[in-house]
């Protein structure tokens, strides 16, 4: 092998090495960016889900707040405890002895 051929071979080897190196570098960089974007998207999704969860929790808390419950109870015909101390019994209570209880 002549000297010129050896030089060409060395140059080709070096080029091959450099090309593989750059290809590998580019592939890894792209993969890293891609993974980063996926992680970022997941992170944003997680934050959005947390916000959605909190929004639902807020809706539940608002619906079960005392003023709201009182309002709903009134609309259903219930009275607050302080306004009625007992049920007005006006039934003709003449139960048979067996059903009268102890």
């Amino acid at each position, binding site marked *: 092998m002549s000297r010129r051929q050896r030089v060409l071979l060395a140059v080709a080897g070096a080029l091959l090495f450099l090309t593989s190196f750059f290809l590998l570098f580019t592939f890894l960089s792209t993969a890293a960016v891609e993974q980063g974007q996926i992680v970022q998207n997941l992170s944003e999704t997680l934050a959005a889900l947390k916000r959605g969860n909190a929004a639902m929790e807020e809706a539940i*808390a608002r619906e079960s707040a005392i003023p709201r419950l009182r309002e709903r109870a009134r609309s259903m015909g219930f009275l607050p405890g302080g306004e009625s101390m007992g049920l007005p019994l006006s039934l003709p209570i003449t139960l048979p002895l067996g059903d009268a209880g102890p």
Partner: protein
Amino acid sequence: MKEPVSTLRLHPVTFPPALLLGLVVIRLIYLTFYAPWDPPGVQSLELRLEAQRGRILDRRGAVLAMDAPRYQVVLEYPPIAYGGDPVRRARWLQQVDEILSPLLGLSVQEATRSWPDTWWQFPVTRGIPEDLARVVSQRIEEAGLRGVRVRPYWQRVYPDGPLLGPVVGFVFFGADDLGVEGRRGAAGVEKAYDELLRGKPVILRVPVDAEGRPLPLQEEALAQPEPGGEVVLTIDRTIQAIVAEELARGLQESGAPRGDAVVLRPRTGEILAMVSLPAFDPNSPETLDRDARNPVVQDLYEPGSVFKILTMAAALENGVVQPETRYLDQGCVEFGGAPICNWDRDRYPGGRGWLDMTELLIYSRNVGAAHLARLLGPERFYAALHAFGIGEPTDVDLPYEAVMRVRAYGDPDWREADLGRQSFGQAVSVTPLQMAVAVSAVANDGLIMRPFVVQEIRTAEGVRRTEPRIRRRAISAQTARTLREMLAGVIEREAVKARVPGYRMAGKTGTAQIPTPLGYDPRDTIASFVGFGPVEDPQVLILVKLDRPRRSPWGSEEAAPVFARIAARILPLLGIPPAASGP
């Protein structure tokens, strides 16, 4: 012989480019690994990712305070994007206005009138709910609108509004001791447990491009803010609502402009309800003025006749009297050079004659209380007040507890007349909570517990429960039992409006004059009642206080019925069945 030519030798022509290339490589290595991320000249944006503040729950898990998501529309238009051309900026604003104004219901151009030229960003509107935020974002995307962002943030929400305002408190935006800005607890549990509730925000300096868009984020940008811990209160929201309802009714019927009530478990110190009316709404910043405080903990008053419980306890504990000991009740006596008279001296100018100690409490004799103070002497009297915690904080886990020093024997400003007046609750100031805690010793066999409102703290590290803690023994168990029976007699024989059907309760009325800079107010009073029950095994203590009632000035007339109605409704809720022997 020909010398070998070194292949490494550089030709003078190739040296400068090689040097240049080397410098470029070194610079690249520096920029990649060592240079600061935000070199001078690169425009950046400070992004603050606020942590979700922890929830505050009642003892049954109902949400009393929470962070809910809200959205704000922010305009971002860095000067570099329009090159300082106001025409381009105005055109852009007009475009934003045309697209967003119908959705937001406001004129964007009007809203941005106060946008300073030096600001890159300007919040157009806040408080947008999630569904509208989604619609706005979609519209921005469809229209390809640049420089407009819909950003989420956390807003503190109190679902029950004013019902728990004074206890839970509220938050505000401001700087802490280190100058770091953020949301801070300003009152109530929000203030007392701020460190735990607030969590850890993430603050990022993100480089932006010429149009203000953040460049791809670094790894640390993926860091999520750490949410705050949760706090579970001893407060029972249902009991709180009952107390608020009955106190409101008491205010309405008596004509009193304001009032307070506190319910606690004497055995543990747990506070079940703490109500002040009128109350502020922590959801409405406009109501958060100087009245945004908790009067049960922060307001002092002269307690009046309920204080006779402590005087009697001291007398019984020191053995200077027994329940059956009698004394001669006169209408007025002289004490330390000052006259002390009974409240009914017009009806009984010469007093009620010979009374025993139970009757002293039943008929609420000022002269009798002064008689006990004289028998005790100042040293034993003030030692007893100290034992009951009068003149010192209760150590409750709420901020800004008010305390007033008791003018006591040995102080340069003390006079003998003070002893006489203090024996029936004048010339001494306490908060409603301090009074309730002092009386709780009688209900708890002489032991004073530390009052508390937080029963559990939940963080990422785990759950921590507050254990009841004994502060001290005020009186012996025997004295406490004796006094309980005497106080039961007060309700059974005189303060009949405090009777609770099915339960045997004990308590004492109080009608206190209101001190002013010119002496005591000749007209107005503070009507109060403190009681507990069932007498055999006290599970709950209730203090009711009405300021300046109009219909009647007396605690027995105005505060006692409120006490009775509260007790009648909450005792069954606490699982305490009515006794067959009860009235």
